[in-house]
């Protein structure tokens, strides 16, 4: 088999199962690739080479013994550093958790292990998943493999870049306002934010509990579906996880059919503010969907214009509470403990030293929004907006099966370009945020390169809650048509590193 790092997860899994290659060979090839290119990309914060090879060896032993294997057994994966992995550094991109090794596995990690998926290491991210560029990582930014001077998106830039740099065929992300989808969009990869509660949050270091959702990332729709199936399903440890059968996303990805499907174009998520090349590729993708037999209709979601405002009240509010526990008392960084400072002073000094500026900004926003006398005007009002956005979605899904929009208004911007302008950074998530507020599922998949900068453009597909299979049905069909047109997946056009 040719370069193992260029293969899809599905192909690798088949090759391992049929003894064409060993899982150890596949894992070693990816570890070698990481060693070769991650100095430029910085997708990984921590490579778990030893445990990865041990896992791979165990898979090969199972293959030799004829033990039944999971659909992705032996395939390597990059894990966003926000998910607890027993015994391995887990920092959420923050100095305040430097050196902390969780004594337990997140449910996602437990399921990956159970599926014999090999975890290569922990991928870089904006600190506590706050950001759209991975520049807010306390451990330095990740670079976009398409152009190393550009951002890989965020917060899950590390996971997306690892895929785009062929350091891993699979990755796990988490999506609170677009942190899976926007990085997928700007790196020419695929990412899915499942329906809220579709994948357990247990062991995901919480940013905003009511918005957070782990999900699968890969270079193709089918690989994404296979990973989705491996991690999804009810978890008694997460009260908010859905206790129902997971839709058959793999079958949907294989079926890949939009004939007769009604696809709604969200009026509010296009036009002004969208880069010309983004709008152009988006329009072309709609044409392709129409040619494939879908019915394209325009749908209005009038309350989406309030989504960003509501999001930036709800998220900081929940984050301010979720991040309170990082106080230097039990784990991670402790600063200012000189024997003289009071416990409150040690907490304050630790948090001052351990948190980056974006984290502090959001903690302050959230603390303010939840304050007595302001709660109703801010948090309470934002929850009402959230209800209205959910109603917009519900009304839209009365008329259509899925909704679409560009994933992000622009292609990858330059590192540093928006770092000093939080509002401009926040606006990058304008199209992805409504999905989290409503708790529905959405996918981003590549639909071409913007003519003006040659960088990937992504389309977002949104489906009603619990109907994540529709994402794969539509995404699979569009991907197949585009692959036919180009002769390969878009990611194959990424420059050599």
């Amino acid at each position: 088999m040719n370069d193992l790092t260029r293969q899809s997860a599905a192909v690798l899994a088949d090759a391992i199962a049929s003894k064409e290659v060993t899982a150890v060979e596949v894992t070693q090839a990816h570890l070698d690739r990481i060693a070769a290119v991650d100095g430029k990309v910085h997708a990984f914060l921590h490579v778990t080479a030893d445990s990865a090879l041990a896992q791979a060896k165990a898979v090969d032993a199972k293959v030799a013994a004829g033990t039944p294997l999971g659909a992705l057994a032996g395939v390597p994966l990059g894990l966003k550093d926000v998910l607890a992995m027993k015994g391995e550094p887990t920092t959420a991109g923050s100095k305040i958790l430097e050196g902390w090794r969780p004594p337990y596995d997140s449910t996602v990690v437990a399921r990956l292990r159970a599926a014999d998926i090999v975890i290569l290491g922990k991928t870089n991210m904006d600190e506590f998943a706050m950001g759209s560029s991975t520049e807010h990582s306390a451990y330095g930014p990740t670079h976009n493999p398409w152009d190393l001077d550009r951002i890989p998106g965020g917060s899950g830039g590390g996971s997306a870049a690892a895929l785009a740099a062929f350091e891993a065929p699979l990755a796990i992300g988490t999506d609170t306002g677009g942190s899976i989808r926007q990085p997928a969009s700007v790196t020419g990869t695929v990412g899915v934010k499942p329906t809220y509660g579709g994948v357990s949050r247990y062991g995901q270091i919480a940013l905003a509990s009511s918005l957070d959702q782990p999900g699968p990332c890969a270079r193709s729709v089918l690989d994404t579906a296979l990973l989705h199936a491996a991690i999804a399903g009810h978890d008694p440890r997460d009260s908010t996880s859905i206790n129902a059968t997971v839709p058959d996303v793999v079958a949907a990805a294989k079926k890949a059919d939009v004939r007769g499907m009604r696809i709604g174009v969200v009026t509010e998520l296009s036009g002004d503010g969208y880069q010309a090349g983004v709008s152009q590729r988006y329009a072309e993708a709609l044409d392709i969907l129409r040619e494939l037999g879908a019915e394209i209709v325009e749908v209005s979601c009038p309350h989406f214009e309030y989504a960003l405002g509501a999001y930036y009240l709800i998220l900081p509010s929940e984050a301010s509470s979720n991040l309170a526990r990082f106080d230097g008392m039990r784990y991670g960084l402790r600063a200012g403990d000189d024997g003289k400072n009071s416990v409150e002073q040690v907490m304050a000094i630790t948090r001052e030293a351990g948190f980056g500026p974006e984290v502090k900004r959001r903690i302050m926003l959230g603390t303010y929004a939840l304050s007595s006398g302001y709660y109703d005007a801010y948090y309470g009002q934002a929850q009402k907006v959230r209800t209205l956005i959910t109603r917009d979605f519900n009304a839209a899904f009365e008329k259509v099966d899925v909704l679409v929009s560009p994933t992000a208004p622009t292609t990858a911007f330059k590192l540093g370009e928006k770092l000093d302008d939080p509002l401009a950074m926040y606006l990058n998530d304008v199209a992805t945020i409504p999905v989290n507020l409503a708790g529905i599922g959405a996918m981003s998949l590549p639909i071409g390169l913007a003519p003006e900068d040659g960088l990937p453009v992504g389309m977002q597909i949104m489906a009603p809650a619990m109907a994540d299979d529709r994402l794969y049905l539509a995404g699979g069909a569009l991907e197949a048509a585009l692959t036919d047109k180009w002769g390969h997946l878009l990611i194959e056009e990424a420059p050599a590193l």
Partner: protein
Amino acid sequence: MSTQNMTNGEVDVYLDYDEAIGGYDPVIGLETHVELGTNSKMWCGCSTNFGADSNTQVCPVCLGLPGSMPVVNRAAVESTIRIGLALNCTIAEWCRFARKNYFYPDMPKDYQISQYDEPLCFDGYLDVTVETPDGPQVVRVEIERVHMEEDTGKLTHAGGATGRIHGADYSLVDYNRAGIPLIEIVTKPVTGTGRLAPEVARAYVTELRNVIIALVVSDARMEEGSMRCDVNLSIAKPGAEWGTRSETKNVNSLRSVERAVRSEIERQASVLNNGGRIIQETRHFHEDTGRSTSGRSKEQAEDYRYFPEPDLVPVAPSREWVEELRATMPEMPAVKRARLQAEWNINEFELQSLANAGAIELVEATIAAGVDAAAARKWWTGELLRVANETGVELDSLTVTPDDIKQVEALIASGSLNDKLARQVFDGLINGEGTVDEVVAKRGLAVVSDDGALLAAIDEALAASPDVAEKIKSGKIQAAGAIVGAVMKTTKGQADAAKVRTLLLERLGVTE
């Protein structure tokens, strides 16, 4: 009173209670925390056993480790509903948990999961009886709410003068207690109790404890902290608007509830009479002095930034479940007391004494074990209550069981023990010297019933006092007492005095 004392609310000389209550009407409010006796914690499967080594009953959830998530303990919800039903509350059809945000090292998440504006149970009442010079009086204490929350870890401060976190050399945290299901029962303001306020407060907490024990939802041991009470109190001139309230914490026994209310009325009246003002503050009660000292001031109300807990789904107990629980409620203590009063043929005062002593269940169990009702009451409210009071523990904390009393009573009935020796048996049981038989054997506690041994002792005593022997022989039978006494002394009280007397008179050939 010095200026300094005027501002910090501390008092050099307290008015006595009669003076204090003479000029003011008190309003009390009681917040009672009860640790539920569930096997596992509120959000995880960790054990709730008391007394384990520090930080051995913990997991990622109750340590609040990054990424961990809570899951509601159904047994805790059930216990809370049962308490709500016992307190005549409405049970919410739908309610949520909320986060109470504040930083403190005993709280792993730096927020406590509690309930805020949507408690599980609300609008109830509990009738309590207090003794007055005019006889027993029933007072209805209205219940504002019963809600669920989690306990914090336990801090131990080493070094420093205050025993508090400030000034300590270092502090240790035991998170075994963190996440233990806690319920808070809050009364509405209790008004119109006048000088009876301390007794009403005690009677309420006592009755609440009785209810909780009857429901078997907690052992409600105040000395172990599984039941804790905060006393809110304000006073005002009759007819005036309510005064500023203080909140007294660290009230760790039923007796302290009464003392804390009394003391706080005295303190506030003293401050006001001296022209001072009451500040809204938390105070700490001290068992040793019976007085409280100021804790942190609450003049700038703490902002807990409550918001609905997003990691948990709402609790929506079905009406069927609630009715099922209502149908399986045990007999409530007040109903039971009325029944027992009739069955044991005692008056209300006697029963109230038993109730106040926390002895009803013990007496009942002792009778159930086969002991005569009067004897059961005698031991629990006599010797055992005396020991409990002396050592400052609740009656049911003594290591004496109804079955022990049954055994002791059997030994008395067979003549092997007398009451005096029985008290020594109980002393041995409480000291952990083993079972009744073991204590009897180890301490050599047995009535000397061997006639030979007694006759020998009688002969010895007669030989030592020949004059007394002559007196008895001559018909002065009352002189026998001296010889009986001497015999009891040689047998270390382990003889049946009546039997000694009979044997003595036989020996001397005297008839009465």
